[in-house]
């Protein structure tokens, strides 16, 4: 039976369990719910949980270890001599899996009968054509050894499915019966359901934390791997970025960091004043009507995918800047060679960050108690005096936090720089030169055919790690500042 079907059975059992548990609880007290410890539906839920959860956990575990077991089995079925010279075991294994899946599909499509599929050696010459008829494309003719391994794999899977079905249904029924037998008027079903809910919540939190930890660990391992192939000092202090897949690469991060920081700086110079002023206008001057229109508009700006901003940089802002600062431009200077530059990417990224800065600052300014404003107005201060001398100083730590958060977004931003900043890693002061960033280089090192055994590809992890450490540092700093500020009014 397929996993989907098994799951359906489990759900069905749980539903039956719910109604059964409820009915049973009611019948133990002859319908007088006041004599039950918990409300009847808690008894139902209790049975449903015990019917479903243990079996579901079993299913998850099973699905998690099965591939490893099957991989081991198939690999045993393959003779070492079956693996062609210079080919990786994993590639052959892939092939085996593909053939096994192909057989399943062909049987389902009817181009191979089930009997034939059990002994596919007999139709090996015909196999490719029959696969083709079922819509399964094979790279080459099927080798006998692979086919045999595939057969082993299919056999193993068939057995496993039967075992799984039996095991699952047994577990589910056992849980069902065990829970159902517990039901007495005094049984604390409410407590047990509460406990299950707590476990569910903890499990969700764990998933979130563990995946983060997993991502960080994989980053760290791969970074360490990279530093085995490439000296760390050359990476951190190298002034040149010149990867070449023929070897002799210069993988210095400094030019990339410079580009990242320069572009982020331009972006912040654009975003911080505009975002902050917009926030001040919205929270202190605008009436409720204006606010209700402008705030959502700003939030739409925040919802635009960054690739669209990238296009905007490439197609509109870049050419516009060239018209002004480029050759034959309005200013008659030739600061700018092409449309891609630090300025292009920085400006557009700044626009992207405006709603981010303004909505965070708006929240922070609104958190300044009205009584402080009243106090200032009551002394005869004007609005702008109040903002300048009372509200902004009170909100300053929070605003700094917001700016740091914006900075960490700017540092991590990718699409806008890929399209707007150019690809040349350069250490230059001219903001109209094309430069590139850490994120853009991660993309370019990993696009196309890459094998993860060269430093040119693995450098992406070291770059990612560096970026992660920078943004993490900024976020932690920002959070600390924001938290400190929170305490002020409590």
């Amino acid at each position, binding site marked *: 039976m397929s996993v989907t079907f098994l799951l359906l059975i489990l759900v069905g059992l749980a539903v039956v369990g719910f109604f059964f548990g409820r009915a049973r609880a009611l019948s133990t007290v002859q319908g007088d719910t006041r004599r039950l410890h918990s409300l009847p539906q808690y008894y139902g839920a209790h049975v449903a949980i015990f019917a479903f959860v243990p079996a579901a956990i079993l299913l998850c575990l099973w699905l998690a270890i099965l591939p490893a077991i099957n991989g081991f089995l198939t690999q045993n079925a393959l003779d070492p001599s079956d693996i062609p010279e210079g080919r990786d075991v994993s590639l052959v294994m892939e092939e085996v899996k593909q053939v096994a899946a192909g057989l399943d599909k062909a049987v389902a499509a009817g181009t191979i009968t089930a009997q034939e599929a059990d002994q596919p050696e007999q139709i090996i010459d015909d196999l490719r054509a029959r696969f083709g008829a079922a819509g399964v494309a094979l790279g080459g003719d099927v080798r006998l050894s692979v086919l045999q391994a595939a057969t082993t794999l299919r056999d193993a899977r068939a057995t496993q499915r039967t075992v799984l079905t039996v095991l699952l249904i047994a577990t589910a029924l056992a849980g069902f019966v065990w829970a159902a037998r517990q039901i007495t008027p005094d049984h604390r079903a409410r407590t047990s359901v509460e406990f299950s809910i707590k476990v569910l919540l903890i499990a969700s939190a764990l998933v979130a934390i563990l995946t983060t930890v997993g991502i960080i660990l994989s980053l760290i391992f791969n970074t360490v791997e990279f530093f085995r192939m490439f000296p760390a000092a050359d990476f951190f202090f190298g002034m040149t970025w010149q990867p070449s897949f023929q070897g002799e690469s210069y993988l210095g991060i400094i030019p990339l960091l410079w580009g990242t920081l320069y572009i982020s700086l331009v972006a912040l110079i654009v975003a911080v004043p505009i975002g902050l002023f917009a926030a001040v206008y919205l929270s202190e001057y605008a*009436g*409720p009507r204006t606010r209700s229109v402008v705030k959502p508009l700003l939030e739409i700006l925040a919802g635009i995918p960054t690739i669209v901003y990238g296009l905007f940089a490439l197609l509109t802002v870049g050419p516009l800047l060239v018209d002004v600062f480029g050759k034959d431009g309005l200013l008659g200077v030739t600061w700018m060679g092409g449309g891609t530059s630090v300025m292009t990417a920085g400006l557009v990224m700044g626009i992207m960050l405006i709603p981010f800065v303004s909505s965070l600052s708006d929240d922070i300014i609104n958190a300044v*108690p009205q*009584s*402080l*404003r*009243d*106090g*200032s*107005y*009551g*002394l*005869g*201060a*004007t609005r702008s*005096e109040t903002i300048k*001398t*009372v509200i902004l*100083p*009170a909100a300053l730590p929070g605003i700094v936090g917001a700016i740091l958060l914006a900075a960490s977004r700017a540092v991590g931003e990718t699409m806008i720089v890929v399209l707007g900043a150019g690809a040349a890693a350069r250490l230059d002061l001219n903001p109209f030169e094309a430069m590139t960033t850490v994120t853009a280089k991660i993309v370019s090192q990993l696009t196309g055919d890459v094998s993860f055994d060269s430093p040119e590809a693995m450098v992406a992890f070291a770059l990612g790690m560096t970026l992660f450490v920078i943004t993490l540092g900024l976020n932690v700093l920002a959070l600390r500042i924001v938290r400190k500020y929170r305490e*002020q009014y409590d």
Partner: protein
Amino acid sequence: MLDNTIYNERLDTMNDVKISARGVNVFYADTHAIKDVDVDIKDKMVTSFIGPSGCGKSTFLRCLNRMNDTIDICRVTGDIRMDGQDINAKEVDPVQLRAKVGMVFQKPNPFPKSIYDNVSYGPRIHGMARTKAEMDEIVEKSLRRGALWDEVKDRLHAPGTGLSGGQQQRLCIARAVATEPQVLLMDEPCSALDPIATAQIEELIEELRQNFSVVIVTHSMQQAARVSQRTAFFHLGNLVEYGETGQIFTNPTDSRTESYITGRIG
């Protein structure tokens, strides 16, 4: 706005009246918080507003320096004149008005700045001191008037929010008197103070009366009787009775006033 004949009719005495309010109504969205109130605040006198919680004392007080302008949903109608000038007129700048009509709020609201900066805030924005020494003098004088000087003179640069609740309230009083207002509106200034500080504030009120008029909202009948010359009793948004303090407390004309001051409604 009332037309002139009615206005003159309702105007009993114009001499030594600092602020006169006629036919004032206040609405918060649909709530009718103040209903057709007429009050004269006399110059160089203390007027107290008493009445049960929620009857509109704070709301009416806030009309006198147009603080209700800062509340979006609040609408004020009627005629309020200070020295004969309609304070709600277009040409009156509420900011200037508030410099002349200072306010101490019901809840202490010191700025998250130093004690010194809190007190010098008003004088600074109004350019009242030319030198640092003058400013120091204003700050000291105001803190003394607020009965706070002795407690804070060694830590003028500590944050004002670090003071105790009662000290914060006195800081707010010092802050308000620092701008030398002509009228001082005090909304329950002593509700967080101990008897000693209360006595000091009452002394300050008495002193302020020499030059300014003071309006004080209080829940303490004794305080109203002690410090004020005139008392207004509000009930459910109406001004029930207004007159000489002695007369209100000894011989009220309205039965509601009598019930309130003897503690039967509240």
